[in-house]
Structure formats: structure tokens, C-alpha cells
């Protein structure tokens, strides 16, 4: 008799249990409390944090202020990807160039072919050579290091960036942000 009551109860409880675990799709903000922390890959908030650190350090150093004609002209150079995954480096560099543009401290040299074409056409028509060389270039590297101890895995992503003075040929600022994640599996929350 007891079993007759207990079994239907258990059967009814199982779907309820699964419903409780399911999460309906909803919009989230980058870097919120619910962010997914992946052990084996760079998450969107990792790019934001690396860019945040780079911009803060770069602006704090004052290196970008030392130009004859402010705002400085910046050209984005190569970001080497030394990780095991395919990385769109624009996720890092675009945030940095937008932040520098918003600060009023630097402008980025356009990579748009149409804009460059119009500029060259204007120079040709007016017989002018007014091309301004970039004051700085921004280059860097993303490196992945993996350590294991039993089931625990630690992945560290090092975002190394250099601001290079094109006239002097020296690096006027260098920054490195290490983002480390450790655990046995990816999780939600930080």
C-alpha cells in the first residue's frame, strides 16, 4: 500500500526536478554574475577585462599624450594568437581603439578601403601629400598556458600588448594582463 502511494509520488517528482534545473533563455549583460566561465577558452568577459586593464594602464602612463600634434594617431598592428583556439583579435583591439577614441587621446588610422581611396583621390586632385604617419602602433600576443593536477585544470591567458613609437622605434608602453581560470569543469558564475 505504501509503495502504491510512494511510487507515483516519486514519478511525479522527477519531471519537477528537471524543470527546476532548466533555465529559460534570457538576455544577459557582459560580465554579469551569471557569466559562463569556460576552462578551455577565452570568454567574452576575458577580452573586456584585458582591454580594460590595457586602456587603464596606457592612459595612466601618459605615453600616448607625448605627441607633437594631439590626439595621437594609432595604427593597430598584429596581435599574435598563441592559443589553441581560433581568436578574433578585434574582440580585444576594437575595445581598446574605441576607448582611446572616446578618451580624446588617440585616433585610429582607418582600414576602410573607401575612406583611404577618397583621401588619396583628394591628395591627387589638390597635388598634396598630407599623409600623416601614425605616431604609434599597437601590437601584442595572446598566450595560453595549461597546468593540470589530477582532475583540476588551470588555464591562464596572458594578453601582452605593446605601444610602439614609430618615430623613435621604441616601445613606449607595455602591458600584460593574465587571466587565470581553475576548476574541473566550466561553470556559470565567477
Amino acid at each position, binding site marked *: 500500500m505504501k509503495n502504491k502511494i510512494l511510487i507515483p509520488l516519486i514519478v511525479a517528482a522527477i519531471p519537477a526536478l528537471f524543470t527546476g534545473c532548466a533555465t529559460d533563455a534570457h538576455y544577459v549583460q557582459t560580465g554579469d*554574475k551569471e557569466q559562463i566561465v569556460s576552462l578551455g577558452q577565452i570568454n567574452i568577459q576575458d577580452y573586456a*577585462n584585458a582591454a580594460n586593464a590595457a*586602456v587603464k594602464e596606457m*592612459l595612466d602612463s601618459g605615453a600616448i599624450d607625448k605627441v607633437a600634434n594631439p590626439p595621437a594617431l594609432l595604427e593597430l598592428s598584429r596581435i599574435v594568437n598563441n592559443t589553441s583556439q581560433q581568436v578574433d583579435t578585434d574582440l580585444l583591439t576594437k575595445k581598446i581603439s574605441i576607448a582611446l577614441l*572616446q*578618451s580624446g*587621446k588617440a585616433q585610429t588610422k582607418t582600414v576602410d578601403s573607401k575612406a583611404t581611396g577618397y583621401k588619396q583621390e583628394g591628395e591627387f586632385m589638390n597635388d598634396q601629400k598630407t599623409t600623416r604617419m601614425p605616431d604609434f602602433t599597437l601590437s601584442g600576443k595572446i598566450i595560453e598556458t595549461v597546468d593540470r593536477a589530477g582532475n583540476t585544470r588551470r588555464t591562464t591567458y596572458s594578453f601582452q600588448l605593446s605601444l610602439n613609437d614609430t618615430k623613435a622605434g621604441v616601445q613606449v608602453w607595455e602591458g600584460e594582463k593574465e587571466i587565470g581560470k581553475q576548476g574541473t569543469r566550466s561553470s556559470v558564475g*565567477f
Partner: protein
Amino acid sequence: MKILKLFSLVLAGGALALTGCSTVNTVENAQKEGQRNMISDQRVITDAGLNRKVAIVGVNSAMTPGGLLKVQVELENHTHSLQRFLYHFEWFDANGMQVNNIISASVPEQIEGKESKFIYSIAPNPSCRDFRVKFIEAD
């Protein structure tokens, strides 16, 4: 038998508690050369639990060489265990309007037991006059 079980449980609990607790010892120069420009702050505490664990000690500001406002917040972990939280800076111009900032993501941070730590941010542009820092405890 019961006592043996209880004893092993207490031992296991003690070991866990010891693993979770590690505090920080510090040393610094007594005669300070630098002078911090401390600013009076206004606090809104909605998470008293977080405030009890990780307290705001003080806020100071300075200007960067390029004329941007730099704000530094000193935090102190009042507990004996590591605490994780997110912080987020917001910036406002002279009219009190919030300034759009691409680098506005919340930054994950952790602080060891009894550790004192500084976090800082730089205003996104020279028009920024005021700021607000938000703290959220990790689950």
C-alpha cells in the same frame, strides 16, 4: 562507534575550515612619503553581508599626466577567508550625465583573508567629474 564517527566528522570539518582560511601578513614603510588625496564618499549599502566581509576603507583621487581623473578605492577583507566579488565603475560629467564607456564591464576581483587591497579606474575622458563604484558579491 558513534563517537568514532563524530570524531572523524569533526576532524574532517576542521581540515576543511583550515583549508578555507588563509590570511595575509603585510609590512610597509612607517614614514609615508606620498600623500593620498582622500575624498569624502557617500555610501549606499544594500548588501550588508558583503559590506561586513569586504569593507570600503577609503577613496582617493589623482589626475593622470593626460588630465584624466583617476580614482582608487581601498578595500579590506574583514574575514579570514578569500572573498570574491565584482566591481564596476560608472562615470559622470559636469552635468551629472553618465558618460558612455566601452570599457564598462564588471571586473572580477578576489581578496585574501584580512587583506587590504586597492582597486582603481581611470575616467574614460577629461569631461568626467564624478564617479560611482558598484560591488556585487560572488555566489
